[in-house]
């Protein structure tokens, strides 16, 4: 039988699964790793659910737990970095030349993101999720000003990395 709080929890997680999936997408090195991380995040969310007082938005609370779990977990670093492209990149053949170029550039961008540090990945993820710098500060604990500086540096870094990808480095 499911208790009321468990039912509430399951509903909230169900509605916000995208957050966990995105974190797993960025921090998991392969499919098995992503599934393990997904499971661990759900367990950590459940264990902390009793302390959720609604002082912050549920999504903010969820981002914190998911990122804390992904970043702080001691997971053995594999020697080879395997790039796995996210499911949102269309797998079918692109119809037009323009679409093909766009798809290629998207892959390059994703490959570049996978080379960022763990902190940079977190900032990029929140940026892509359209979070304000205030919300990012609330989740990461890095000041608004520092986040803006870091974001500009990350954009430059990504430009350099995607250029290197194009040049075949």
């Amino acid at each position: 039988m499911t208790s009321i709080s468990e039912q509430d929890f399951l509903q909230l997680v169900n509605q916000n699964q995208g957050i966990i999936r995105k974190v797993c997408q960025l921090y998991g090195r392969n499919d098995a790793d992503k599934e393990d991380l997904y499971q661990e995040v759900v367990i950590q969310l459940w264990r902390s659910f009793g302390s959720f007082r609604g002082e912050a938005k549920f999504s903010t609370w969820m981002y914190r737990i998911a990122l804390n779990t992904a970043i702080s977990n001691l997971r053995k670093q594999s020697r080879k970095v395997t790039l796995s492209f996210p499911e949102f990149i269309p797998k079918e053949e692109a119809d037009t030349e323009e679409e093909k170029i766009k798809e290629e550039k998207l892959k390059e961008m994703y490959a570049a993101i996978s080379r960022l540090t763990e902190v940079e990945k977190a900032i990029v993820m929140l940026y892509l999720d359209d979070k304000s710098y205030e919300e990012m500060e609330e989740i990461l604990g890095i000041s608004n000003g520092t986040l803006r500086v870091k974001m500009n540096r990350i954009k430059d870094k990504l430009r350099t990395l995607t250029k290197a990808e194009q040049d075949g480095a």
Partner: protein
Amino acid sequence: MELDQLKEMWGDVGTKQSNTSEEELQVLLQKKSTSPIAKMKRNLLFELIAVLVLYIIVIAYYFIQYRGGMQWNAWLLLAIGVLYVFYYQRKRKLLNSMECITCEVKSNLKMQLNTLEKYVRFYLIAGTALFPVTLMATGLIMFFYSPEISKDLTVPSGKAVWIFTAVLVFLSAVLTVPVYYINKWYVRKLYGQHVERLKVIVNEMNED
């Protein structure tokens, strides 16, 4: 491609993937955490159970089997057992305060780094200190268990205990030095990589 162009497609991550049903999520809730801290807690509990079982058997054996002076061995082991329980409690307390998963990422990582460094120091100091204590206790038990040891010392029996103790202290002091370095190597092997990784992340978060 610029990062902003990726924003449109990023929203689809998670929504286009097959969602985990509430039933599947419910199954996940019954599973054990595989986080390093949860594993460390479980290992520590197994260690406590193993030590307690072993000590209780040996202490009970000495109490039941012997009378008089030999029972001091049981009291000695009991005292070491009590010290171990304090050691266990300290480690458990450090593990419990090692993370605040609902806190801001930066403060959680800082807390984890500071507590892990304390844990490693405690592990090293307590692990090293345990060696001479165990050696002394073993030596004294052997001395009382085999009184012929004192006969080998060509001194009156009253002084034999003190000479034997002095030799034990000297041996313990000399042997503790390599034990310290072995422990240091082992602790670094266990936690060194994680501590270094956390330091890099915390430094990056502190940079302006």
